[in-house]
Protein backbone atom coordinates (compact mmCIF):
# COMPACT_ATOMS: atom_id res chain seq x y z
CA UNK A 1 0.00 0.00 0.00
CA UNK A 2 1.25 3.48 -0.88
CA UNK A 3 0.08 6.63 0.86
CA UNK A 4 0.97 10.32 0.61
CA UNK A 5 2.81 11.52 3.68
CA UNK A 6 3.01 14.99 5.20
CA UNK A 7 5.82 15.06 7.81
CA UNK A 8 5.74 18.69 8.99
CA UNK A 9 8.36 21.17 10.21
CA UNK A 10 9.26 19.66 13.56
CA UNK A 11 9.63 16.12 12.24
CA UNK A 12 12.53 17.26 10.08
CA UNK A 13 14.19 18.99 13.02
CA UNK A 14 13.58 18.45 16.74
CA UNK A 15 11.27 15.44 16.32
CA UNK A 16 13.32 13.36 13.89
CA UNK A 17 12.56 10.22 15.91
CA UNK A 18 8.85 10.61 15.31
CA UNK A 19 9.48 10.75 11.55
CA UNK A 20 12.20 8.12 11.19
CA UNK A 21 10.41 5.47 13.23
CA UNK A 22 7.20 6.20 11.35
CA UNK A 23 8.99 5.37 8.08
CA UNK A 24 10.71 2.25 9.40
CA UNK A 25 7.58 0.88 11.03
CA UNK A 26 5.40 1.55 8.00
CA UNK A 27 7.91 -0.30 5.86
CA UNK A 28 7.79 -3.28 8.20
CA UNK A 29 3.99 -3.24 7.91
CA UNK A 30 4.00 -3.11 4.12
CA UNK A 31 3.07 0.55 3.81
CA UNK A 32 5.16 2.99 1.77
CA UNK A 33 5.02 6.59 2.95
CA UNK A 34 5.53 8.80 -0.11
CA UNK A 35 6.57 12.21 1.13
CA UNK A 36 4.75 15.07 -0.55
CA UNK A 37 7.09 17.04 -2.77
CA UNK A 38 7.77 20.59 -1.67
CA UNK A 39 5.36 20.41 1.26
CA UNK A 40 5.01 23.61 3.27
CA UNK A 41 4.53 24.01 7.01
CA UNK A 42 0.89 23.69 8.09
CA UNK A 43 1.23 26.62 10.49
CA UNK A 44 1.02 24.54 13.66
CA UNK A 45 -2.47 25.61 14.69
CA UNK A 46 -5.70 25.91 12.74
CA UNK A 47 -7.22 29.36 12.59
CA UNK A 48 -10.95 28.98 13.12
CA UNK A 49 -11.77 32.40 11.63
CA UNK A 50 -13.94 32.20 8.51
CA UNK A 51 -12.06 34.98 6.75
CA UNK A 52 -8.57 33.49 7.09
CA UNK A 53 -7.59 32.07 3.70
CA UNK A 54 -3.84 32.46 3.17
CA UNK A 55 -2.96 30.62 6.41
CA UNK A 56 -4.74 27.50 5.14
CA UNK A 57 -3.32 27.27 1.63
CA UNK A 58 -0.33 25.08 2.49
CA UNK A 59 -2.73 22.43 3.82
CA UNK A 60 -4.90 22.66 0.71
CA UNK A 61 -1.83 22.21 -1.50
CA UNK A 62 -0.85 19.04 0.39
CA UNK A 63 -4.40 17.70 0.20
CA UNK A 64 -4.61 18.42 -3.49
CA UNK A 65 -1.27 16.75 -4.17
CA UNK A 66 -2.43 13.54 -2.46
CA UNK A 67 -5.75 13.77 -4.30
CA UNK A 68 -4.02 13.94 -7.66
CA UNK A 69 -2.12 10.76 -6.80
CA UNK A 70 -5.39 9.22 -5.63
CA UNK A 71 -3.81 8.41 -2.28
CA UNK A 72 -4.95 9.00 1.27
CA UNK A 73 -2.95 11.67 3.08
CA UNK A 74 -1.23 10.45 6.24
CA UNK A 75 0.24 12.68 8.97
CA UNK A 76 1.99 11.67 12.19
CA UNK A 77 2.23 14.93 14.10
CA UNK A 78 -0.95 15.73 16.05
CA UNK A 79 -0.78 19.38 15.06
CA UNK A 80 -0.32 18.83 11.31
CA UNK A 81 -3.12 16.29 11.41
CA UNK A 82 -5.44 18.71 13.19
CA UNK A 83 -4.72 21.61 10.84
CA UNK A 84 -4.98 19.56 7.66
CA UNK A 85 -8.14 17.74 8.70
CA UNK A 86 -9.85 20.95 9.79
CA UNK A 87 -8.84 22.65 6.54
CA UNK A 88 -10.18 19.71 4.54
CA UNK A 89 -13.45 19.86 6.46
CA UNK A 90 -13.75 23.59 5.75
CA UNK A 91 -13.18 22.89 2.04
CA UNK A 92 -15.98 20.30 2.15
CA UNK A 93 -18.53 22.24 4.15
CA UNK A 94 -17.89 25.98 3.72
CA UNK A 95 -18.54 26.79 0.08
CA UNK A 96 -17.68 30.47 0.49
CA UNK A 97 -14.27 29.58 1.91
CA UNK A 98 -13.67 26.88 -0.71
CA UNK A 99 -14.56 29.36 -3.45
CA UNK A 100 -12.03 31.90 -2.14
CA UNK A 101 -9.32 29.23 -1.93
CA UNK A 102 -10.05 27.93 -5.39
CA UNK A 103 -9.96 31.43 -6.88
CA UNK A 104 -6.63 32.00 -5.21
CA UNK A 105 -5.22 28.75 -6.54
CA UNK A 106 -7.06 28.91 -9.88
CA UNK A 107 -3.96 28.08 -11.92
CA UNK A 108 -3.67 24.70 -10.19
CA UNK A 109 -7.27 23.56 -10.70
CA UNK A 110 -10.03 23.23 -8.11
CA UNK A 111 -10.17 21.17 -4.92
CA UNK A 112 -13.21 20.52 -2.76
CA UNK A 113 -12.09 18.26 0.04
CA UNK A 114 -12.03 14.93 -1.81
CA UNK A 115 -8.86 13.56 -0.17
CA UNK A 116 -9.13 11.23 2.83
CA UNK A 117 -6.95 12.32 5.76
CA UNK A 118 -5.62 9.75 8.20
CA UNK A 119 -3.55 10.16 11.30
CA UNK A 120 -0.84 7.46 11.41
CA UNK A 121 -2.75 5.84 14.30
CA UNK A 122 -5.90 5.76 12.16
CA UNK A 123 -3.84 4.24 9.37
CA UNK A 124 -2.72 1.49 11.78
CA UNK A 125 -6.25 0.87 13.03
CA UNK A 126 -8.26 1.28 9.83
CA UNK A 127 -5.93 0.50 6.92
CA UNK A 128 -3.39 -1.93 8.40
CA UNK A 129 -5.57 -3.30 11.19
CA UNK A 130 -4.56 -3.91 14.80
CA UNK A 131 -4.86 -7.69 14.31
CA UNK A 132 -2.28 -7.57 11.52
CA UNK A 133 -0.10 -5.30 13.64
CA UNK A 134 -0.29 -7.79 16.49
CA UNK A 135 0.98 -10.57 14.21
CA UNK A 136 3.98 -8.48 13.14
CA UNK A 137 5.19 -7.80 16.67
CA UNK A 138 8.56 -9.48 17.27
CA UNK A 139 9.57 -7.84 20.56
CA UNK A 140 6.51 -8.02 22.75
CA UNK A 141 6.27 -5.25 25.29
CA UNK A 142 4.52 -7.55 27.74
CA UNK A 143 4.34 -6.29 31.29
CA UNK A 144 5.12 -2.66 30.45
CA UNK A 145 2.61 -0.21 31.85
CA UNK A 146 2.16 2.51 29.26
CA UNK A 147 -0.10 5.56 29.39
CA UNK A 148 -1.40 7.11 26.18
CA UNK A 149 -1.41 10.88 26.15
CA UNK A 150 -3.83 12.23 23.55
CA UNK A 151 -3.65 15.91 24.45
CA UNK A 152 -6.08 18.26 22.76
CA UNK A 153 -5.29 18.13 19.06
CA UNK A 154 -5.79 14.46 18.22
CA UNK A 155 -9.44 14.27 19.17
CA UNK A 156 -10.92 17.77 19.04
CA UNK A 157 -13.05 19.17 17.61
CA UNK A 158 -14.75 15.79 17.37
CA UNK A 159 -17.27 16.91 14.75
CA UNK A 160 -14.30 17.31 12.39
CA UNK A 161 -11.65 14.87 13.61
CA UNK A 162 -14.00 11.85 13.86
CA UNK A 163 -11.16 9.76 15.15
CA UNK A 164 -12.57 8.29 18.32
CA UNK A 165 -14.85 9.04 21.26
CA UNK A 166 -13.38 12.41 22.35
CA UNK A 167 -14.01 11.79 26.06
CA UNK A 168 -13.33 8.07 26.26
CA UNK A 169 -10.91 7.29 23.43
CA UNK A 170 -9.40 3.84 22.87
CA UNK A 171 -7.34 4.16 19.67
CA UNK A 172 -4.04 4.62 21.52
CA UNK A 173 -4.86 2.13 24.28
CA UNK A 174 -5.73 -0.49 21.66
CA UNK A 175 -2.45 0.34 19.93
CA UNK A 176 -0.55 -0.24 23.20
CA UNK A 177 -2.36 -3.55 23.73
CA UNK A 178 -1.64 -4.65 20.15
CA UNK A 179 2.07 -4.29 20.98
CA UNK A 180 1.56 -6.57 23.98
CA UNK A 181 1.87 -3.92 26.72
CA UNK A 182 -0.64 -2.90 29.39
CA UNK A 183 -2.55 0.30 28.65
CA UNK A 184 -2.87 2.61 31.65
CA UNK A 185 -6.12 4.55 31.50
CA UNK A 186 -6.22 7.87 33.40
CA UNK A 187 -8.59 10.83 33.49
CA UNK A 188 -6.41 13.58 32.08
CA UNK A 189 -5.26 11.83 28.95
CA UNK A 190 -7.25 14.17 26.72
CA UNK A 191 -6.52 17.42 28.58
CA UNK A 192 -4.23 20.09 27.14
CA UNK A 193 -0.55 20.30 28.19
CA UNK A 194 -0.55 24.05 27.56
CA UNK A 195 0.72 23.91 23.98
CA UNK A 196 2.15 27.19 22.72
CA UNK A 197 1.29 28.93 26.03
CA UNK A 198 4.82 28.11 27.22
CA UNK A 199 5.81 31.20 25.20
CA UNK A 200 3.32 33.45 26.95
CA UNK A 201 2.99 31.86 30.35
CA UNK A 202 5.46 29.04 31.20
CA UNK A 203 3.91 28.60 34.65
CA UNK A 204 0.55 27.79 33.05
CA UNK A 205 2.17 25.12 30.87
CA UNK A 206 3.93 23.78 33.95
CA UNK A 207 0.72 23.51 35.95
CA UNK A 208 -1.14 21.75 33.15
CA UNK A 209 1.72 19.39 32.31
CA UNK A 210 2.38 18.50 35.94
CA UNK A 211 -1.20 17.55 36.61
CA UNK A 212 -1.19 15.25 33.56
CA UNK A 213 2.08 13.56 34.58
CA UNK A 214 0.92 13.11 38.19
CA UNK A 215 -2.41 11.72 37.05
CA UNK A 216 -0.73 9.18 34.73
CA UNK A 217 1.73 8.12 37.43
CA UNK A 218 -1.00 7.74 40.03
CA UNK A 219 -2.72 5.32 37.65
CA UNK A 220 0.49 3.25 37.50
CA UNK A 221 2.14 4.48 34.31
CA UNK A 222 5.83 3.71 33.78
CA UNK A 223 5.95 5.46 30.44
CA UNK A 224 3.88 8.01 28.49
CA UNK A 225 3.48 7.92 24.72
CA UNK A 226 2.47 10.85 22.54
CA UNK A 227 2.12 11.82 18.87
CA UNK A 228 2.84 15.51 19.44
CA UNK A 229 6.31 17.13 19.64
CA UNK A 230 4.96 20.06 21.64
CA UNK A 231 3.25 17.78 24.18
CA UNK A 232 6.52 15.87 24.55
CA UNK A 233 8.46 19.09 25.04
CA UNK A 234 6.05 20.46 27.64
CA UNK A 235 5.82 17.21 29.61
CA UNK A 236 9.59 16.63 29.64
CA UNK A 237 10.45 20.24 30.39
CA UNK A 238 7.98 20.38 33.22
CA UNK A 239 9.36 17.55 35.25
CA UNK A 240 8.24 14.23 33.81
CA UNK A 241 10.24 11.66 35.80
CA UNK A 242 9.07 8.76 33.66
CA UNK A 243 10.01 8.45 29.96
CA UNK A 244 7.87 10.35 27.45
CA UNK A 245 8.35 8.81 24.00
CA UNK A 246 6.81 9.06 20.56
CA UNK A 247 4.37 6.27 19.78
CA UNK A 248 6.31 5.50 16.59
CA UNK A 249 9.42 4.75 18.63
CA UNK A 250 7.50 2.22 20.69
CA UNK A 251 6.08 0.76 17.47
CA UNK A 252 9.53 0.44 15.90
CA UNK A 253 10.80 -1.28 19.04
CA UNK A 254 7.96 -3.81 18.99
CA UNK A 255 8.37 -4.44 15.27
CA UNK A 256 12.10 -5.02 15.73
CA UNK A 257 13.19 -2.21 13.41
CA UNK A 258 14.41 0.27 16.00
CA UNK A 259 17.97 -1.04 16.07
CA UNK A 260 18.47 -0.53 12.32
CA UNK A 261 18.09 3.19 12.71
CA UNK A 262 20.48 5.82 13.94
CA UNK A 263 18.00 8.34 15.25
Amino acid sequence: MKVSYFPGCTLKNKAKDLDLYAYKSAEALGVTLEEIENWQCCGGVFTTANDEVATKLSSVRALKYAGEKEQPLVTVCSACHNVIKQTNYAMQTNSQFADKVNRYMAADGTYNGETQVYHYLEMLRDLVGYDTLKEKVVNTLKGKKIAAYYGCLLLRPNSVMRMDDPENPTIMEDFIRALGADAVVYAKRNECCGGYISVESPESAKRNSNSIIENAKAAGAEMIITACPLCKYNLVKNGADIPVVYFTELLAEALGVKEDTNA
Partner: protein
Amino acid sequence: MHNNKYLQEEIIRISGVNPSKCMRCGKCSATCPAYDEMEYHPHQFVNMVECGDIEPLLNSKSLYKCLSCFACIDRCPRGVQPAKVVEAVRLTAIRKQGANHLTADMVPEIVDEDTPQQLLVSAFRKYTK
Protein backbone atom coordinates in the same frame (compact mmCIF):
# COMPACT_ATOMS: atom_id res chain seq x y z
CA MET B 1 -20.97 49.40 28.96
CA HIS B 2 -20.73 50.54 25.40
CA ASN B 3 -22.70 48.69 22.73
CA ASN B 4 -20.51 48.58 19.64
CA LYS B 5 -22.80 47.21 16.95
CA TYR B 6 -20.18 47.29 14.19
CA LEU B 7 -17.56 45.33 16.14
CA GLN B 8 -20.22 42.91 17.36
CA GLU B 9 -21.22 42.12 13.78
CA GLU B 10 -17.56 41.77 12.82
CA ILE B 11 -16.89 39.21 15.56
CA ILE B 12 -20.01 37.26 14.66
CA ARG B 13 -19.05 37.30 10.96
CA ILE B 14 -15.44 36.25 11.53
CA SER B 15 -16.26 33.55 14.10
CA GLY B 16 -19.47 32.25 12.58
CA VAL B 17 -20.76 31.92 16.16
CA ASN B 18 -24.29 32.82 17.24
CA PRO B 19 -23.81 33.94 20.88
CA SER B 20 -27.55 34.01 21.58
CA LYS B 21 -27.54 30.18 21.52
CA CYS B 22 -25.71 30.28 24.88
CA MET B 23 -27.80 29.16 27.88
CA ARG B 24 -25.27 30.36 30.49
CA CYS B 25 -24.43 26.96 31.97
CA GLY B 26 -20.74 27.91 32.32
CA LYS B 27 -19.46 24.52 31.23
CA CYS B 28 -16.99 26.16 28.80
CA SER B 29 -15.32 28.08 31.61
CA ALA B 30 -15.47 25.12 34.00
CA THR B 31 -13.53 22.96 31.54
CA CYS B 32 -11.09 25.66 30.38
CA PRO B 33 -7.46 24.79 31.26
CA ALA B 34 -6.55 28.49 31.11
CA TYR B 35 -9.40 29.64 33.39
CA ASP B 36 -7.14 30.80 36.25
CA GLU B 37 -5.08 32.91 33.87
CA MET B 38 -8.02 34.77 32.40
CA GLU B 39 -9.56 38.09 33.33
CA TYR B 40 -12.55 37.34 31.09
CA HIS B 41 -13.50 33.67 30.87
CA PRO B 42 -14.95 31.82 27.88
CA HIS B 43 -18.60 32.25 28.95
CA GLN B 44 -17.97 35.97 29.45
CA PHE B 45 -16.55 36.29 25.95
CA VAL B 46 -19.77 34.83 24.57
CA ASN B 47 -21.99 36.98 26.77
CA MET B 48 -20.10 40.21 26.15
CA VAL B 49 -20.17 39.69 22.38
CA GLU B 50 -23.92 39.07 22.62
CA CYS B 51 -24.21 42.44 24.40
CA GLY B 52 -21.88 44.23 21.96
CA ASP B 53 -19.45 44.98 24.79
CA ILE B 54 -16.32 44.30 22.72
CA GLU B 55 -13.71 46.92 23.71
CA PRO B 56 -12.83 45.41 27.11
CA LEU B 57 -12.21 42.07 25.39
CA LEU B 58 -10.05 43.66 22.68
CA ASN B 59 -7.84 45.18 25.34
CA SER B 60 -7.66 42.16 27.63
CA LYS B 61 -4.65 39.88 28.07
CA SER B 62 -7.15 37.01 28.22
CA LEU B 63 -6.95 36.93 24.41
CA TYR B 64 -3.46 35.47 24.67
CA LYS B 65 -4.24 32.90 27.37
CA CYS B 66 -6.55 30.68 25.31
CA LEU B 67 -4.76 27.43 24.38
CA SER B 68 -6.97 26.63 21.37
CA CYS B 69 -7.46 23.17 22.87
CA PHE B 70 -11.12 23.10 21.72
CA ALA B 71 -12.32 21.70 25.08
CA CYS B 72 -14.98 24.43 25.32
CA ILE B 73 -16.10 23.67 21.76
CA ASP B 74 -16.57 19.95 22.31
CA ARG B 75 -18.08 20.24 25.80
CA CYS B 76 -20.66 22.96 25.11
CA PRO B 77 -24.12 21.40 25.25
CA ARG B 78 -25.46 24.08 22.88
CA GLY B 79 -22.76 24.01 20.22
CA VAL B 80 -21.85 27.68 20.76
CA GLN B 81 -18.10 27.21 20.15
CA PRO B 82 -16.66 29.86 22.53
CA ALA B 83 -13.04 29.36 21.32
CA LYS B 84 -14.07 30.70 17.92
CA VAL B 85 -15.26 33.91 19.59
CA VAL B 86 -11.96 34.29 21.44
CA GLU B 87 -10.09 33.72 18.17
CA ALA B 88 -12.17 36.30 16.29
CA VAL B 89 -11.60 38.95 18.98
CA ARG B 90 -7.88 38.15 19.12
CA LEU B 91 -7.56 38.48 15.35
CA THR B 92 -9.44 41.77 15.44
CA ALA B 93 -6.94 43.00 18.03
CA ILE B 94 -3.74 41.85 16.30
CA ARG B 95 -4.81 42.81 12.78
CA LYS B 96 -4.21 46.40 13.85
CA GLN B 97 -0.92 47.95 12.69
CA GLY B 98 1.80 47.38 15.30
CA ALA B 99 -0.37 45.21 17.55
CA ASN B 100 1.55 41.96 17.21
CA HIS B 101 1.74 40.22 20.58
CA LEU B 102 4.99 38.38 19.77
CA THR B 103 7.98 39.68 17.83
CA ALA B 104 11.10 38.04 16.44
CA ASP B 105 13.39 39.81 18.92
CA MET B 106 11.61 38.00 21.77
CA VAL B 107 12.54 34.58 20.38
CA PRO B 108 16.10 34.15 21.74
CA GLU B 109 14.74 34.46 25.26
CA ILE B 110 12.04 31.87 24.63
CA VAL B 111 14.01 29.07 23.00
CA ASP B 112 16.17 26.43 24.61
CA GLU B 113 18.01 23.61 22.85
CA ASP B 114 14.94 21.35 22.85
CA THR B 115 12.31 23.88 21.71
CA PRO B 116 10.34 22.25 18.89
CA GLN B 117 9.76 24.32 15.75
CA GLN B 118 6.07 23.65 16.33
CA LEU B 119 6.09 25.84 19.44
CA LEU B 120 7.33 28.94 17.64
CA VAL B 121 5.26 28.35 14.52
CA SER B 122 2.08 27.96 16.60
CA ALA B 123 2.79 30.94 18.82
CA PHE B 124 3.51 33.20 15.85
CA ARG B 125 0.34 32.09 14.13
CA LYS B 126 -1.73 32.83 17.23
CA TYR B 127 -0.05 36.04 18.35
CA THR B 128 0.94 37.87 15.19
CA LYS B 129 -0.33 39.02 11.83
